[in-house]
């Protein structure tokens, strides 16, 4: 399933619920995520319903993170499986995105 997303505001944080795969097909969806969070100072990405992230998906997340950092917004991630936590760690994404409560930890 290609990526869909929904946003909500929760106590000053823009929460982005992601669903599907984060790969090349998710490029457009992430452009929309970036637009939806362009004014946010705190962004939470919810990965509960993400079942696949590949290297292109990692690059897309890096792109979103770069935009957020350029305006000093912080980014958090929740719901990552242990495998994707591992990938966030080896790519050092976890140095810049706070990982909160891995789903199967």
């Amino acid at each position, binding site marked *: 399933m290609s990526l869909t997303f929904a946003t909500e505001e929760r106590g000053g944080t823009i929460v982005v619920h992601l669903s599907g795969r984060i790969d090349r097909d998710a490029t457009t969806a992430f452009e929309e995520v970036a637009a939806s969070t362009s004014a946010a100072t705190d962004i939470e990405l919810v990965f509960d319903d993400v079942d696949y992230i590949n290297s292109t998906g*990692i690059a897309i997340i*890096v792109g979103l*993170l770069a935009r957020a950092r350029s305006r000093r917004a912080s980014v958090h991630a929740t719901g990552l499986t242990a*495998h994707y936590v591992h990938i966030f760690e080896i*790519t050092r994404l976890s140095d810049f995105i706070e990982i909160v409560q891995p789903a199967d930890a």
Partner: protein
Amino acid sequence: MTRTVESREDGKVVTDPPVVLTRTPGVATEPAPRRGARRRAAKEARAARKAARRAELNPTDSRATTIEVRIDPGDPLLTFLQDAPGPLEIKTLPPTSPAVARLREQGAQVVVPLITSGELVGVLALGPRLSERTYTRNDRRLLDSLTRYAAPALRLGQVMRQQENEVRDRERIEQELHVAQLVQQQFLPAELPELGGWHVAAFYRPARTVGGDFYDVIQLADGRVMVVTGDVTDKGIPAALVMASTTALLRSAAEVTSSPSEVLRRVNELLIPQIPMNMFVTCQVLVIELDTGRTLFANAGHNLPYISRAGQVVQLAARGMPLGLMPGSRYDDVETVIEPDDIVLLYSDGITEQHDRAGEMFGFGRTGEVVAGARSGDELVDRAIESLSAFSVGVEQEDDITLVTLHRGRSSGYHDTVSFAVPSIAGGERDVMDRVAAIVEGALPARRLEDLKTAVSETAMNAIEHGNRGDQNLDVEVVVRRTAESITVDVADFGRGRRSEADIPDIDLKLAGLQAPRGWGLFLVRELTDRVEEITDGDRHIVRLVMHTTEHEGNES
């Protein structure tokens, strides 16, 4: 000890000394009418005097010559000058000294020893003064005073030059050793081959930059495999040179015969004319039939292999003279069968003869204990190194260490092999990933399976997008092999090889806009698998991913 007469710059001494022995011309006495004009006139006069003095001291003066004398370490002059009080007339020096004779020949009149911290570091030799006057008492006092300052400075210069030379020599030796290391690596297998149903693991650590241990795995024309380990006496460069020669001879012999004893006999005869005196090579050769485990073994004085078999430890036994010692040496082929689940350990004496702080050797007993507890070849290697490190903590590694393990799996050959192909359609990598996951189900812990899935997906995506350039008429072919110890996934396309990602991905650079956000694929594949190989097979390019099924250090995730 060789000493050379030294001067401040070029190691030579000019006969007429500079400034110190030159009389200063008289001061101009012309009167000047006004104060400013007086100053200008005085300045001009000083400049004129300096110019005149420079001309007088010009080293190109036709009357100036150079004294250059090498003083041999045994020359009595050195002993004489060691205790000399200061400047000395040439006629007061020991007449038996060859150096004094040479100094006389070159016109030296006065010699001043340069002594600092009680050590004679040089000699200042002076010829006749350009003024043709004799050296006065004041001249000698001045020379004596000068040498008190000059000697430590000269010594400092000598020490600095010596250190510079030592640094240069060290750098050259390190560079040569680095080259030797690169050359030696060419004689060790870059990758251990995947042998159907067998798993080979190896560890090699020379005691110095290069070493004399060696091992090799040679696939024979009849399908059998020859495994060789050996140890050249001595360490370092001499051992490495003999090691290189021996491995080349072994490979050459393996092309002619598949009998281990005959291989050893041939190499012995070829090695004897070229091996230096007091050096020899211990070596053992195993030729293995992979399907049956039937093994021929011959030994040239090497440590006997251990076999871990059903909880017991046994040793293969065969005798023979080391290589390079005696012409006409004969060796025997011993036949044995390596059973399924057997683990064979081939090793050098770098492990058994390593001492601890108390001077006790690691020995065969501890080596056997390590073999007894092993469940896989990789684990055996890891346990042996851990055990040896703990045993010899605080003690330098004494000899090269080589370990090679052969683990025969339950089912020999690639009996659990599944092949399939997918067209080069964007997104097809997920199909490949799911199918591989289904094939290897149960063979890997859940988290390692997830690692393999991501690695397979990335490799397949690369094959589709880059290897086959998205051409739907070209398939991506996948072969999955399961053995007792590993999962191997071959992903083949019709390209010329993976597009290597130019830069190692660095998130700091990517976030700073200094590196493109993409470029993670190859990095992930390498990080998530135990081994990645690239193979060219005709017009196909194959990427092979290997995952060990047994947990050992380095592959837990």
